[in-house]
């Protein structure tokens, strides 16, 4: 079992994304460092557009995460509705 992770700048725009990740991935661990938020998760981590939208009540384009995305590890599987990091390929 290996971890995947993703990190965002710590600001208002990334807050609902982080909250959505925590809601969708119960095993995820959030680490606050100065200026960034890093989220580690065993095996895989999924970001869902629908969850972010239910956090903010507004439409969200998943590509908006790139504005605040700092780094990530894992193979990416993404479409308009979700982005999944895992080591499966």
């Amino acid at each position: 079992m290996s971890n995947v992770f993703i990190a965002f700048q710590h600001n208002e725009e990334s807050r609902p994304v982080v909250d959505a990740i925590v809601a969708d991935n119960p095993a995820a661990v959030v680490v606050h460092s100065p200026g960034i938020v890093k989220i580690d998760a065993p095996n895989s981590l999924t970001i869902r557009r629908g969850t972010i939208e239910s956090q903010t009540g507004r439409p969200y384009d998943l590509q908006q995460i790139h504005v605040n995305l700092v780094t990530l590890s894992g193979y990416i599987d993404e479409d308009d509705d979700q982005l999944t990091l895992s080591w499966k390929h």
Partner: protein
Amino acid sequence: MNIDLQAREIAPLRNTYAHVANYVGNDKPASRYQEATFGAQPTANFHYRPTWDPEHEIFDASRSAIVLADWYVLKDPRQLYYATWTMARARQQDAMESNFQFVESRGMVPKIPDAVREKALQVLVPLRHAAWGANMNNASICAYGYGTAFTAPAMFHAMDNLGVAQYLTRLGLALDDPSVLDHGKQDWLSDPRWQVLRRCVEDSFVVEDPFELFVAQNLALDGLLYPLIYGSFVDEHVALQGGTAVAMLTAFMPEWHDESARWVDAVVKTAAAESDANRRQISLWVQAWTERAQAALAPVAELALGDAGQDALAEARAALTERCRKAGVLA
């Protein structure tokens, strides 16, 4: 010499202001929405009662028949505060601006059949006065309502309604001469088909209970008007008869209505869930004002869609009843 730079984390002792922490706790940083909303309502040291209403304090929850232990429960699910609201609307304004440019640069207006263009103007231009009425009413909700969670989005809603009125004005100017605005006003003031709606809008100006006004304007009247006009009339009728340009120039309205309906429903649902008395009171208001709004829109529906108008209005009514049922009130 070797300089070793290290990042050292200093955990803040307080994650937010004490008055915000009262509501959300101090476990994690509060969001900007929470900081801009919770605890912002003035509650004490008012000194004098207003001379125009000595029965109440200047900010007074008892202006409404709705009783809530804490008015901050009426949270906005969109979490709009000034910055997020202006950014969201600026994006929508950019989209609308390019729609107007597209329609003008491609010469789409002359391609609309004359009868369709006339009909669209006849129905849409007088509605800018109804949108202005909604602006007045929401400003009134903000002025006399209680609790920033409830009043701040009402003010945003008021300005959004002003935006709707302005888009309708620009639509009139894009589709015809400036005199079309005068004709629209004349219709609003004297054409019998608009008088029931005008009476309904003007009567709502003197509703004193801010929550009743909220139900009357934002749930009942707009809940019927927007699906009827921008759904059934513009999207399903005008657009299919060569009036795509009209649908482009009113694109903001249905999008905004869907978005703001989430806020309206959440406010009604939360207030109704607090007590049976609230639920009964809101249900009474919803029933009375929905009846009223439906009667007021009947001649407008017929003007817009002819015989199919009543079916479209009944459809809008059914959709509104369903919304109310989900929010836990009887319509």
